[in-house]
């Protein structure tokens, strides 16, 4: 077993364990911290796939930004020591059934499909030069339009967050 494979099994074990803990933990702050572990392990998978830039984005934006935002909102809206009550039995069984049936169907489809690599293509390096050129390019392999659209989306969500969270006068 090479180090690659060992790292992969370690990271995916962390991901799966802590995802289960995220959805089953009965204390909310702990669930958020478990989600943080999942996100960090996912960025480890990205490093393994040799997408260094995206792994860094995942660490700073997801693990650094979103999780901190969620933890702040937990602190604003609930008591930390409070424990959730157990979910109702029928709901629990419905969730487990959805998990078993859904993942069985998806895995069966997945494993019976034969993935074919595009023949005769060389792996291109994913460095900042290539990423910048493609992200702002308008020709072949250019992503200028989605880039513009996501900037509009971020503007809209900023305005929406301010409008919604603003205190009403009176």
């Amino acid at each position: 077993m090479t180090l690659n494979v060992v790292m992969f099994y370690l990271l995916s074990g962390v991901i799966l364990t802590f995802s289960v803990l995220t959805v089953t933990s009965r204390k909310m702050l702990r669930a958020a911290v478990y989600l943080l572990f999942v996100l960090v392990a996912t960025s480890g998978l990205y490093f393994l796939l040799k997408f260094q830039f995206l792994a860094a984005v995942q660490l700073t934006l997801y693990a650094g930004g979103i999780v901190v935002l969620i933890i702040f909102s937990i602190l604003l809206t609930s008591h930390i020591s409070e424990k959730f009550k157990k979910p109702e039995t029928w709901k629990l069984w419905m969730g487990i059934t959805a998990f078993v049936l859904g993942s069985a169907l998806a895995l069966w489809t997945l494993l019976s499909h034969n993935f074919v690599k595009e023949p005769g293509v060389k792996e291109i390096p994913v460095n900042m030069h290539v990423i910048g050129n493609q992200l702002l390019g308008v020709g072949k392999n250019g992503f200028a339009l989605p880039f513009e659209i996501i900037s509009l989306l971020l503007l809209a969500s900023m305005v929406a967050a301010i409008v919604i969270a603003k205190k009403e006068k009176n």
Partner: protein
Amino acid sequence: MIQGISIYHFLIVSTLMFFIGITGFIIRQNLITILLSVELILNSVAINFLVFNRYLFPGQLQGHFFSLFIVGVAAAEASVAIALIINIYRRIHNIEVNNVNEMKF
């Protein structure tokens, strides 16, 4: 292409993560924990995009860019959802799903 690991390994991990997120979406009662499940789902989809990019189409970067956009969309979605949740908390002092049956502005 990563030595010693096939595409199926990655896809199995992301599939299980996706359905764990779905299960959390169903069994959770609290709005913020539902948001955590949604983050799990988004994250597993991003893994899928990257794996297909690396294993099947290594000559382009489409999966890479769409994962980048997924991270951006997730950030936007989390900020708006948290603004909504805080507003709901101000009105009814509670963020259980069962108590939120009116969202009129």
